[in-house]
């Protein structure tokens, strides 16, 4: 009898173990959630690091939604930005994604490619005209045409250290990345300081603005080894040799370009206006030197944009409520209210037309805000191809690092990058 109990216990544990060992093998949902039902019931809403700063705003919008749609209940959860990607992956594998998720287009990419979120083009395609085109297109992952309703945006301005730029006598403001490299060379020759710091995240933007497509039409082949890319990379290597880009740029940590600019070691920094506050706090003497201008590619419509969107899980039990909430949260009025108390930009054109963005600048922050809003409104921004996410950017950067330091030939490095990235794209296509 005792032996039987023990055998049963062991068998139960083993069976549970084997069953649980299969965690992570959940298939993509085959039956998509029904969005035609009534707007009622409970949903969960997950944001990326908006609490506690925006507690009042978010809770206010939730209250307004619940009043407009009686019988609904929204449970808000906030996760730190650096943990959002892993939480989403774990939730997806466990089949327990929140109903509505605030995610940037890069983090959302795997879910969008795998059909784990609702296609907004299918369910709310009528809203397309309301949004900035580059924001709407940022969530196009092929299989899911629009994986989220665009929410808040970030796009850069060009910050210049007027002291270094003045010493170098750089004529005019760089309008393209090629201009920026030329300006960097002049700065290095005249001041001994670097012109700007290239980054792993920025590198795909540099190539895109030069007309390098990065991927083919159906995102199955990488296209990075073009004459324009080779020329640009060779120029970067020359700048590295000259000291016109920081010597440690190739292996520097992400966002260290803000530190080097704040320390007065670089003359130009292309980044979101929100960084102005950080520089003002950490380096007031450098902040005094800053002038802001239009970002690279604003005239050509190739400036980068980072879009956050509200995606609805394909397995949501109250999909109609979730879609209605996403639409409510991203409405022009609610987006404008968020922009007015933060440094992000709305994704709806109606919000961007508000005088808040076009008012006469009173300081650097308001000047930068006007530049970015104008660029977004005028179609100065361009979404990255959906396949070009953080993994793609990291792999590309890894392959070109040795070409920048002059250890390998630029064309060989780009050929190796193209092969590695094609392998990556094909593994995703399987």
């Amino acid at each position: 009898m005792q032996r039987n109990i023990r055998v049963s216990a062991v068998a139960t544990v083993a069976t549970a173990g084997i069953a649980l060992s299969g965690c992570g093998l959940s298939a993509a949902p085959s039956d998509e959630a029904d969005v035609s039902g009534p707007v009622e019931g409970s949903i969960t809403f997950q944001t990326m690091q908006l609490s506690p700063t925006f507690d009042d705003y978010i809770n206010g919008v939730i209250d307004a939604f619940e009043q407009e749609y009686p019988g609904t209940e929204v449970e808000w959860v906030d996760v730190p930005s650096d943990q959002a990607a892993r939480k989403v992956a774990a939730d997806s594998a466990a089949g327990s994604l929140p109903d509505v998720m605030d995610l940037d287009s890069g983090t959302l990419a795997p879910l969008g490619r795998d059909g784990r979120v609702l296609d907004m083009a299918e369910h709310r395609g009528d809203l397309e005209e309301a949004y900035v085109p580059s924001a709407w297109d940022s969530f196009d992952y092929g299989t899911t045409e629009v994986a989220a309703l665009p929410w808040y945006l970030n796009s850069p301005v060009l910050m210049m250290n007027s002291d270094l730029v003045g010493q170098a006598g750089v004529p005019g403001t760089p309008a393209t990345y090629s201009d920026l490299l030329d300006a960097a060379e002049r700065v290095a020759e005249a001041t001994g300081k670097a012109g700007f710091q290239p980054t792993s995240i920025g590198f795909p933007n540099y190539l895109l603005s030069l007309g390098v497509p990065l991927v083919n039409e159906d995102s199955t082949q990488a296209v990075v080894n073009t004459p324009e890319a080779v020329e640009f990379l060779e120029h970067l290597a020359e700048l590295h040799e000259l000291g016109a880009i920081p010597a440690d740029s190739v292996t520097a940590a992400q966002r260290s370009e803000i530190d080097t600019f704040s320390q007065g070691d670089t003359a130009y920094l292309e980044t979101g206006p929100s960084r102005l506050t950080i520089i003002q706090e950490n380096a007031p003497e450098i902040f005094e030197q800053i002038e802001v201008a239009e970002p690279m590619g604003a005239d050509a419509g190739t400036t980068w944009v980072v879009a956050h969107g509200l995606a609805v899980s394909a397995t949501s039990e109250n999909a109609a409520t979730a879609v209605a909430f996403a639409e409510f949260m991203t409405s022009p009025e609610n987006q404008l209210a968020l922009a007015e108390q933060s440094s992000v930009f709305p994704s709806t054109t109606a919000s961007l037309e508000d005088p808040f963005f076009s008012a006469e600048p009173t300081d650097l922050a308001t000047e930068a805000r006007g530049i970015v809003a104008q660029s977004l409104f005028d179609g100065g921004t361009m979404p990255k191809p959906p396949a070009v996410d953080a993994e793609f950017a990291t792999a590309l950067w890894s392959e070109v690092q040795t070409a920048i330091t002059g250890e390998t030939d630029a064309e060989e490095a780009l050929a190796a990058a193209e092969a590695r990235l094609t392998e990556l794209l094909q593994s995703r296509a399987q």
Partner: protein
Amino acid sequence: MTTATVATTAGRRASVRRPAVAPARRHRWWVPLVFIGPVLVIQVTFLFLPLGNTFVLAFTDASTIGGGTFTGWENFATIFTSPVFWEAAGHTGLYLVLAVPAIVCLSLFLAILVNTSMRGAGIVRPILFSPLVMPMAVVALMFQYVLSSDGLLNQVLRGLSIVTEPVGFLTSSRLALLSAVLVTVWKGCGLYTLILLAALQNVSRELDQAAELDGASWLRRTWSVTIPQIRGTVVLVAILSAIAALRVFTEPFVLTGGGPGTSSTTMVLYLFTQGISPGTQAGFASAVSLVLFVAVLLVSAVGWSVSRRSNR
């Protein structure tokens, strides 16, 4: 006679104690479970189930967001034909070859030094052990400042006119891995010195004094008398540092991100890039982790065998 006594004794005991012992025996099988239960639950939940999950995933093409079908040995075939994997394995091997002897020799030297009654040993000890209490990420960040192009080391080298241009400790393909090894050695020495010091303090002084009376020098006594007595601990330090070297991640990740190129990518860093971010290949990364697991097992087995032999 003896047998009869035993039998008799046993019989007497049985006849006297049977009523008291029998109920206890009936329930005895679950008593240990009560004690080991909490630990068992934790081990099963956080060690064995994930291990089992990794084993299953290694034979699938699962992504980190889910999905996947069984693909047999395909992941392993891909691993062993991947040039990046072999490069990462080579870097890990090099890490092992460079870091382990350096850690063992330096820790042994420092332990012997601290164990002597030299002047200032009391100050040296806490300094030696300070890396032990510092998190590896902090240490790596600190060394990033030391080893950067305008960092402390380059400033010293240029100040002494040893070099005219900054040395790319973190940006040269030839030096990036060595820089990471340097950090590992610096961080690891504190712990291993402590272990060796504990062993040295148990060494018999009589043998040393006898050798000294025989006219043996300090170096001779250390090499022929002291070290042989702590050989088992030295082997233990070598095994522990070898396992740590196989699993190295934070140093290259923080210092160079595995670059430039893949020149400082180790096996765990390769595993990280393959299967941690959402949408990456959890199945493939699980297969890489199983290969790493086997490598650690092999190194442990070899070390264990050497340890047993040295203790005989």
